């Protein structure tokens, strides 16, 4: 009989996801810095116009999704390392999922107002 002894095999997937999302955020960071430098000086009309563009919204959304996913893997790692009681760890994990989901919802709300 074939038996699975450990885990749910999410380790490799999370490891990979953390790296892919990291790469996306590195690219966005360079892109965002370049865009802001190219639009100096930043006044309100310039700022508003910038985030009204489709590509900027989509790129920023992609960054926000990457951040939420990346942060989840990181937060889970930290909680698994330091919080030993199962009940407390699970509670904190749920709270952090809610927090990160709220961040994402807020970002969408800002981008598509």
């Amino acid at each position, binding site marked *: 009989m074939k038996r699975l002894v450990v885990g749910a095999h999410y380790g490799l997937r999370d490891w990979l996801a953390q790296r892919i999302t990291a790469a996306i955020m590195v690219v966005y960071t360079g892109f965002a810095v370049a865009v802001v430098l190219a639009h100096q000086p930043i006044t309100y009309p310039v700022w508003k116009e910038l985030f009204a563009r489709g590509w900027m919204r989509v790129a920023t959304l992609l960054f926000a999704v990457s951040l939420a996913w990346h942060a989840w893997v990181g937060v889970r790692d930290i909680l698994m390392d330091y919080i030993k009681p199962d009940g407390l760890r699970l509670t904190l994990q749920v709270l952090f999922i809610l927090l990160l989901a709220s961040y994402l919802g807020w*970002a969408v709300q800002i981008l598509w107002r």
Partner: protein
Amino acid sequence: MASASAKKIRPKYLSLPAILFQIRLPVPGWVSILHRISGALLVIPFTAWLLYLLDTSLRDEEGFQAIRGYLDLPLVKLGMLVFIWAYCHHLFAGIRYLLLDLDVGIELRSARITGWIVIVAGLLLTAVLGASLW
């Protein structure tokens, strides 16, 4: 006095003073723990703070000007400085880890050198960007 049969007590729990003053962490260790600390800081409070700044500054002209004034407050600038450091250190250390995953710089010597580069680059960029804030 030590005999081969002497059992070591495992796991060994360390006191906080031991962690702080007795264990001397090698440079890659510092990069690692600072990567973790900066990552935690970016989740709380900095993501929330930046979303707030983006939200208010994009709302209307008034909000934009309010954020302008807000960013001139010394305490806010100090917070911005910590954010810049956390972002830069996390970014540079992260790129180093991505390279390590690709087997780039895994020798002890190069790992120590890149560790120093990450720490210094993070602080340097923070200083440069911080200077432009003030």
